[in-house]
């Protein structure tokens, strides 16, 4: 079984055209692992994130609609909004917003392209056959499964009553379609699994798998081809599943999925709300945050989608994508007059990889100054999956103000590292963060702080470095880097924090990821093919 899967996979890599080095194909075929059993927690409903809602509406109703600016906000839990989505629900205000949005968006779509939405011509104001045709097709896409007869007749009847009242077939149908978009079957991802024959683990159904993989790879609902595969029942076979993975990774929407994962994992959504004091940071303007996110995501997409590259290179690459705003912060020539262009950063710039970018350096800082603790904590927790407990509530956590003998942040935070109590946690994070001190709170390169020379040297778990350039190399080579990404992707794809019964699955995924030179495409595909993604826990 194992060999068959790997053999299939080699075909698919060739199929999606991502790997240019033919030796990579041979490599996947020589990967020899035994997949461990998993014990999974109870499956739970996941509320669509704001992005998933918008993407799904785009797929259902077409491009060019104006979205309500106000929708139920996402909430991050344990580092991921994907996990928060499994815990939170829909508030009374959220119900109002989804109701407003449903009517508004369906009405807009009718104005933009009526025939795309309603494929039949009603014979009269009330035409149940035509309504049934539209609702059956629209409902199947929106709910990611075929509707049953009761569901269809309820929606047809709502539409008929509305058509009668409003004396307009199309306007009547608005009510049926708006009902579909307010249903928990649309707003929540209903992936609950089903019990197969005795002795076989509970697993997700064909349509549930279509939904799971579609939201993971595309951050939106399945397309017609994927639903057809689910209808045909082939997603519960290795071959059928792999075929769809390859097709989906070659599709343009794969970029959306990759962006969504990295945005969530690295909290890049917070860049919408970046606060910096413009009197301290003269480069600051409202476009800095969104620009910084785009720089990071262009690099991620380049690595994962276009090159099928090595995850470690995200930390060491000198190549990046800048617009004029970012180029001015980095002190380099803007590659393009308008928009983003590719740039190569020299070693003299001090920066490389995502940890040399404003998205990290500014976000993990305060409004007027940098923060060794926040930057170090990001590396430890988000990139290496260590747990740093919150500071105890009842201690004075202030750091001494600058003085003649302690000018730089390193001198001032020394107290964290000298006090045994503070040091137990701060020694894990501050030395890493101090390695980035040659970048101020916005990400501007500097060698002096208040006239004193900044010492950015240190060591990361025994590997010493002189400047951030060296530190980023050590992070790229850190033994926990690959396992952390595998664990985070599993949590993201499953919508829950990793539980005891999944640790071996993380090890299994990590082994493949590392063996395949940290290919994220391989990891994503490997995850979807794994039991941890296809099986489900019991409902209690």
């Amino acid at each position, binding site marked *: 079984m194992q060999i068959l899967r790997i053999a299939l996979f080699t075909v698919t890599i060739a199929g999606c055209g991502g790997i240019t080095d033919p030796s990579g194909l041979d490599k996947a075929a020589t990967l020899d692992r035994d997949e461990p059993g998993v014990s999974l927690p109870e499956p739970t409903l996941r509320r669509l994130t704001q992005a998933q809602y918008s993407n799904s509406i785009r797929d259902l109703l077409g491009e060019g609609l104006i979205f309500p600016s*106000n929708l139920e906000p996402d909430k991050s839990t344990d580092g991921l909004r994907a996990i928060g989505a499994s815990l939170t629900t829909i508030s*009374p205000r959220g*119900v109002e917003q989804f*109701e407003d949005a449903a009517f508004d968006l369906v009405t807009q779509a009718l104005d933009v392209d009526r025939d795309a939405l309603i494929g039949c011509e009603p014979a009269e104001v009330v035409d149940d056959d035509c309504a049934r045709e539209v609702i059956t097709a629209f409902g199947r896409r929106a709910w990611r499964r075929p509707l049953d007869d009761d*569901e269809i007749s*309820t929606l047809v009847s709502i539409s008929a009553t509305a058509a009668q009242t409003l004396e307009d077939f199309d306007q009547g149908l608005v009510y049926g379609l708006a*009902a579909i978009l*307010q249903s928990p079957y649309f707003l929540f991802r209903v992936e609950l699994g089903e019990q197969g024959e005795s002795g076989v683990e509970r697993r997700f159904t064909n349509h549930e798998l279509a939904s799971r993989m579609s939201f993971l790879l595309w951050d939106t609902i399945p397309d017609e081809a994927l639903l057809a595969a689910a209808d045909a029942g082939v997603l519960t076979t290795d071959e059928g599943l792999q075929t769809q993975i390859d097709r989906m990774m070659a599709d343009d929407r794969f970029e959306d999925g990759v962006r969504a994962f990295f945005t969530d994992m690295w909290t890049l959504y917070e860049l919408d709300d970046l606060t910096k004091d413009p009197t301290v940071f003269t480069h600051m303007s409202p476009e800095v945050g969104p620009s910084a996110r785009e720089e990071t995501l262009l690099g991620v997409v380049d690595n994962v989608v276009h090159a099928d590259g090595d995850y470690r290179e995200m930390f060491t690459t000198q190549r990046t994508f800048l617009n004029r705003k970012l180029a001015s912060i980095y002190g380099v020539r803007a590659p393009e007059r308008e928009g983003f262009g590719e740039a190569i950063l020299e070693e003299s710039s001090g920066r490389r990889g995502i940890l040399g970018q404003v998205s990290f350096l500014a976000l993990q800082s305060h409004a007027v100054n940098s923060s060794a603790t926040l930057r170090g904590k990001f590396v430890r927790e988000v990139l290496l999956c260590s747990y740093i407990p919150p500071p105890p509530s009842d201690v004075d956590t202030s750091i001494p103000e600058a003085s003649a003998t302690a000018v730089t942040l390193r001198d001032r935070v020394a107290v964290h590292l000298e006090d045994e109590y503070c040091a137990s946690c701060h020694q894990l994070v501050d030395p890493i963060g101090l390695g980035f001190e040659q970048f101020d709170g916005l990400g501007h390169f500097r060698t002096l702080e208040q006239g004193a020379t900044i010492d950015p040297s240190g060591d990361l778990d025994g590997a010493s470095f002189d400047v951030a350039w060296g530190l980023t190399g050590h992070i790229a080579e850190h033994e926990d880097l690959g396992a952390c990404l595998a664990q985070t992707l599993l949590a993201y794809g499953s919508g829950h924090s990793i539980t005891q019964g999944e640790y071996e699955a993380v090890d299994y995924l990590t082994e493949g990821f590392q063996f395949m030179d940290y290919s994220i495409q391989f990891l994503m595909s490997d995850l979807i093919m794994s039991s941890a993604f296809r099986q489900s826990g019991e409902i209690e």
Partner: protein
Amino acid sequence: MKPLSRREILRGILGGAAVSVGLPPLEAMFNCSGTAYAAGGGLPVRFGLFFWGNGNLPERWTPTGEGTDWSLSEQLEPLGSVKDLITVVSGMNLHTDNIYPHTSGASGILTGCNLLAYEDGRQDGTFAVPSIDQTIAGQIGGDTIYRSLETGAMPGTDGNSYNGPNNRNPPELSPMAFYERIFGASFREPGEEGIVDPTLALRRSVLDAVMGDIDKLNARVGMSDRARLEQHFTGIRELELRLARLQEDPPNLEACLRPESPASEYPEVEGRHPVADIHRAMSDLLVMALACDQTRVFSHWFSDPLTNKLYPDATMGHHSLTHDEPGEQPEVNMVTRFIMGELAYMIEQLAAVDEGDETLLDHMVLLATSEHSRGQTHSFEEMPIVLAGGACGALRQGYHYRSYTGENASHVMLSLVRAMGINAPTFGVDAGEVSDGLSQIET
């Protein structure tokens, strides 16, 4: 006889709701002892919460003097214009656990209960039980268009209005969006007639179908999902009731007017959000939402715990200031005073609305508090608590109560809940639980 299903009960309610209710004479409406003006029974006493993040400086907060003979402190001095309308309660402590800086305190003060505990201890903190605004809304929020309203002033605010674990009511942060929600197309001023609109019934038929979907799905999911779907169901049912009420004639309230529309944008000024402008616009709308009896419960999240936004004239983010500003923390003091000045604005506006011989503020209580006192140490001692309004004569005004024994802040919360006419035996859970109010602030 077979028991009625939820949907059947709901249809029954709705079937009976679309009738006008005879209005009692004006003077009887708001004297706090007559009958309420609509839907029969229950006094129109209201509850508001003003919450700000990152605490205060307790040594500059506590008023001098006690009882009715007291003077405002340095930090409370901006409340001078409303001193006779407020009660300051000082020296109260949180008796709940202080584990997660800021989050534990928000839960402690607003619920009297610890955060929800997870097995591995590394989850984000979520409240375990409803926050006080929702505890109250659950009892007195049922007769108005909105069970409760939530607003915020500082951009990015999440608020802490909890219906239950992981289940928050997100505050509206845009004054324009809030205006359109409350006073938009569906709003009717006193004297105007209820909405006659056939689409209301059609929208209700859609909501009915959605509730049917929820019921069906409920049978397939686990325990935690059932609670989540229950909340979704509640939200739909409330919307359905709201649509039904739109058909009724609006309540005949003398102070109710459609307010002016606020600005659509509030751009930053020198990297600082114009938080006072946003707050004042929201305050004006909230005051009118109460005056028009659109709701009887609101929570206004001036800023969140942990907020690190820049306040006007501050040289560091607020949270950074509380930890890193040296010495006597003059900037922290400045920010706290700024916030108290904005609290004064809200109180003034509530007191400016006449209801019969009294004012809107007389018929409500506004609780102003934060998640801890001193930010630098996240202290649970000397919690900042300011109350405004008399809750229809149930609470003292112009008063300073000082506790010298670090009494449980839950005593205050229980007094407030009871002042809403709610017969609550206790407030809080375990170490935070009390069964007595704070009699000194009650009349």
